[in-house]
């Protein structure tokens, strides 16, 4: 569980260039972490690659926050 969160956090920090402590459970990629809509597409692509999963477009749209991403990936694995 925490392993997934750590890996997701690492991707978010690297991709968006934000401080690690800003990436909290409820942090919204767009509203809190400065992502634009293309960044969110790229984050989803990076998650797919890191975890070897497929995230369909309609599911990707529901992934708004760091917590959403961790929850989705835990469910998909």
């Amino acid at each position, binding site marked *: 569980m925490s392993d997934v969160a750590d890996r997701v956090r690492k991707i978010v920090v690297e991709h968006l260039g934000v401080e690690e402590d800003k990436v909290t459970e409820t942090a919204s990629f767009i509203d809190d972490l400065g992502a634009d809509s*293309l960044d969110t*597409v*790229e984050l989803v*692509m990076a998650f797919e690659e890191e975890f070897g999963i497929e995230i369909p477009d309609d599911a990707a749209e529901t992934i708004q926050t760091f917590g959403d991403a961790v929850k989705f990936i835990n469910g998909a694995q």
Partner: protein
Amino acid sequence: MFDLSGKNVLITGASGGIGGAIAKALHGAGATVALSGTRVEPLEALAAELGDRAHVLPCNLSDADAVNALPKQAADAMGSVDVLVNNAGITRDNIFMRMSDEEWSSVLEVNLTSTMRLCKGVIRGMMKSRWGRIVNISSIVGATGNPGQANYAASKAGMVGMSKSIAYEVASRGITVNCVAPGFITTAMTDKLNDEQKAGILSQVPAGRMGDAEEIAAAVLYLSSPEAAYVTGTTLHVNGGMAML
């Protein structure tokens, strides 16, 4: 200048006059090319002529599943798709009042919708590599209109609007999306015109002649090159001055 060594290119309509010339120009600049089209024999012949760095990937662009599968086939064959040239196009001319839904939709499907599908299919890889070139072959007719070609003109104008929109979205990722709009070019498509039609057209071309496929290919080569990195969302008109846009 215009060195495409190490770049992998997917070209649709490569069995046609303009597509073949584009393939030769990009291959000549060092690119690996995947040649797509409906007719296998001319594709095989072109690949044989090019020699190394040429793959044949037949595809019927009116078959959505086949179109969606093409970018992956190209990436599997070459390792990636760095440059996409949407060149394939069909005409089903008729005066507008007689134009059937089928004539309309088949042209839109092949010329515009398949272009959209292929752009979608290659853009993910381009985003990852932070480099990509999409060149969509539009037409002068998309800008000026042409009697008997409401469907064709709509598809070619649609390409321009779509290309600009995609260009906006992906510009920050090192991907450019542009159009080349040929005027009257000597190809099988224009060979069908009779002498009277040709004379009528030439009277409107300041250059006084039809263009060559190689002159379209040169424009595509430029827009595919690293040197054109700052050119995006534009349409390069290659028409001998027929329409100065």
